[in-house]
C-alpha cells in the first residue's frame, strides 16, 4: 500500500513538472500563436495581428502566474485553444486519436506478442532453425529505416501488385459505420502500415526476450524445476519466461506510451490521419496550440503507462513489493 501511495505521488510530481515545462517553454520563446501564423507575411497590420491574438486568447499584459493558473485549469478541462484552422485543438486530436490507437496501438501489441513468443521459443530451442534463421532475419529488419520498409512495401504491394490501397485510412466515399464492408476497408488500409510497424519492431523484442530467457534458463531454479519433474511447458513458461519477461515490461509500457505520438514516418508515408500525421502537419503549419497539446498528451501517456508497468511488475515480482 505504501508502495502504491509513493508511486502515485511520484506520478503526480512528474506530471506537474511536465505541465510546467510545457507551459514555460513556449512562453520563453519569442512570439506567440498569432505571430507564428503570420510569420510568412511581411508588413502585417498591427490591428490584424491584435485581432488574431484576441482570437487565440493571447494576452501579453497578463501576469505569468495568472496565466499559469489559467493554463493548469484549461489542461484539467481539456481546453487547449484553436489550431491554425480555428478548430478547437481538442476536437482535432480526438479525430486523430482512434486511428493512431487502432493502427499503432494494435501493431505495438502484436509486435511485442510475436517478439516475446519467438524470443521464448528461440531461447528454448537454442541453436535451432528459428534461433539461427528467423530471429536474426527479423533483427536485421529492425535496422532498416522504417520509411524505407514503408516505401518498399508500398511499391511492391501497392503500386506493382495493386493489392492494397496507397494511402489514407479508408476509401474516399465510404461513410464510417460498423458495417462489415467498412471494417474490411479500414483493415485493408491498415495492413501495409501495420506490417511496416510490426516488421520493424518485432526483432528488437525477440532479441531482448531471447537473451533474458537464455539467462533465466541457466538459473538454478530452472534446473530445480527440471529436478522436480515439471512438464517442459511449465518450465518454459512458468519458471523461465515469466521471470524473463519482467525487464521487458517497462520497455513495453514506454512503447505503449509512445503510441500516442503515432509513428510520424509511417503515418506520413501512408498519409494515415493519426496523431503522428497531425503532429507533422502541426509543426509545418507553426501550429503552436496543437503542438503544446500533443506534447502534453504524449507525456501523460508515457507517464501513465510506466505507472501501470510499475504496478504490474510489483504484482508479478514479489521482490519489488517490499522495496
Amino acid at each position, binding site marked *: 500500500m505504501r508502495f502504491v501511495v509513493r508511486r502515485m505521488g511520484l506520478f503526480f510530481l512528474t506530471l506537474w513538472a511536465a505541465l510546467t515545462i510545457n507551459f514555460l517553454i513556449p512562453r520563453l520563446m519569442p512570439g506567440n500563436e498569432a505571430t507564428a501564423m503570420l510569420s510568412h507575411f511581411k508588413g502585417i497590420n498591427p490591428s490584424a495581428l491584435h485581432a488574431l491574438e484576441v482570437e487565440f486568447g493571447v494576452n501579453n499584459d497578463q501576469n505569468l502566474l495568472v496565466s499559469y493558473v489559467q493554463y493548469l485549469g484549461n489542461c484539467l478541462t481539456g481546453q487547449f485553444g484553436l489550431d491554425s484552422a480555428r478548430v478547437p485543438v481538442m476536437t482535432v486530436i480526438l479525430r486523430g486519436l482512434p486511428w493512431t490507437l487502432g493502427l499503432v496501438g494494435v501493431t505495438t501489441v502484436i509486435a511485442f506478442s510475436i517478439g516475446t513468443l519467438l524470443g521464448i521459443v528461440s531461447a528454448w530451442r537454442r541453436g535451432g532453425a528459428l534461433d539461427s534463421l528467423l530471429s536474426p532475419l527479423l533483427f536485421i529488419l529492425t535496422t532498416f529505416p522504417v520509411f524505407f520498409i514503408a516505401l518498399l512495401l508500398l511499391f511492391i504491394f501497392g503500386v506493382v501488385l495493386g493489392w492494397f490501397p496507397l494511402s489514407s485510412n479508408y476509401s474516399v466515399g465510404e461513410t464510417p459505420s460498423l458495417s462489415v464492408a467498412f471494417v474490411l476497408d479500414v483493415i485493408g488500409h491498415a495492413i501495409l502500415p501495420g506490417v511496416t510497424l510490426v516488421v520493424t519492431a518485432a526483432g528488437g523484442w525477440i532479441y531482448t526476450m531471447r537473451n533474458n530467457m537464455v539467462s533465466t534458463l541457466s538459473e538454478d531454479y530452472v534446473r530445480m524445476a527440471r529436478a*522436480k519433474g515439471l512438464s517442459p511447458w511449465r518450465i518454459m513458461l512458468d*519458471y523461465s519466461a515469466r521471470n524473463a519477461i519482467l525487464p521487458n515490461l517497462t520497455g513495453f509500457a514506454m512503447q505503449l506510451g509512445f503510441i500516442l505520438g503515432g509513428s510520424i514516418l509511417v503515418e506520413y508515408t501512408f498519409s494515415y490521419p493519426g496523431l503522428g500525421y497531425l503532429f507533422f502537419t502541426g509543426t509545418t503549419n507553426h501550429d503552436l496550440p496543437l503542438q503544446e497539446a500533443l506534447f502534453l498528451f504524449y507525456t501523460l501517456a508515457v507517464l501513465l503507462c510506466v505507472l501501470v508497468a510499475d504496478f504490474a511488475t510489483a504484482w508479478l515480482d*514479489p521482490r519489488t513489493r517490499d522495496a
Partner: protein
Amino acid sequence: MPSPILEVRDLCVDYVTNSGDVRAVDHVDLTVEAGEFLAIVGESGCGKSTLLFAIAQLLSPPAEISGGSVIFKGNDMVQLSPSELRHMRWRDYSVVMQSAMNALNPMKSIEAQFKDAMAAHGNMSAEAMRNRSAEVLKLVGVDAVHLRSYPHQLSGGMRQRAMIAMALLFTPDLVIMDEPTSALDVVAQRSLMIQIKELQDRLGFAVIFVTHDMSLVSHYSARLAVMYGGQIAEAARTASLFEKPLHPYSVGLLDAFPSIHGPRRVLTGIPGSPPDLARPPAGCRFQPRCPQAMPECAVRQPGLYSVGDSMVRCLLYEAAQPGRPE
C-alpha cells in the same frame, strides 16, 4: 545385507568444447544402499557436482553423459526417455542444491513451489497439498506460516530448510544433496546437518551428500568417496578413512583439517593445484602433487584396488592385488 538402490557403473561425463572434450567424470563406480548416507568429498573442480547432476540426470549442455549407467531402482536412468524420467523425479529421488537463494524461484511463494512439485505427480486435492506442505515444513522446523513467504523474505538457514522440506514432499528413496550447507555459517551448518541426519533416520531415505568439507560429514556419513581429477581416489567406510586413510590424497586432505580432540599438530596443505582436466597428467592424476610418488606413477595409470573394505586408486596398493591387473 541391504540391497543397493543406486548403482553407478563406469559413468563418464564430458564437457563438449570447441577445443575437444573435457572429461569431468571419468569411469566412476558408486553403490548406495537403501537408507545409506554416502558422502562425496573433493576440492573445487574435481567433478563432484558434475557427477551428482549426472546421477540426477540434470546435466545441461555442454555437459553430457558419454558412457556408463546409473541403475536406480532397477532402471538405467541414462537410457530412460525424458517423460519416463519425469515420472521418477521427485517421487523416487529428489535434489537439494547448494544455494536455496538461487534454487528457489524468486517469483513464487514457497507454497506455490511445493504445489508445482506435487501437482506434477498425480492429482492431490488443493487441501491435501496444503496439508502436506505444512507437514514437511514442520518436519524441518519451519513454521507453516512461511508457506506464504517468498524466498527473499526468509533467512539463509530457513531457505535451505524449506528446500529440504520440498525434497521430502513425497518421502523419496534417495535425496541427492549438493553442498546444501556451504552457504551457511558454521552454527547453522551444524544444526542443519543434525536435522538432515535425524530426518534420514526417521524416514529412511538414502542420501548422497557432496561437500568439500570433510570434517562436516565425518559424523554423519556411513561411507565416504574421495574424488580427485574426475575419478574416485578412495572409497571407504568413513570411520576407517579417518582412522587410516589409504590414498596419499586422502592423507593430505586429513592433514589440512585441525582435530579438536587429537594432539596439537602443524596443519599442512597439499602443494600444487588440481589437474587441468582438459590435459590430465599422464599416469596417476595425483602424481605431480604426491609426496609418495614413484617413477612408475608418471607412466602408468593406477586402477581401483580393493584393500579390505576400501577401494583405492594408487599404485602403492597394487601389490595387494596381483590377481587384478588394470
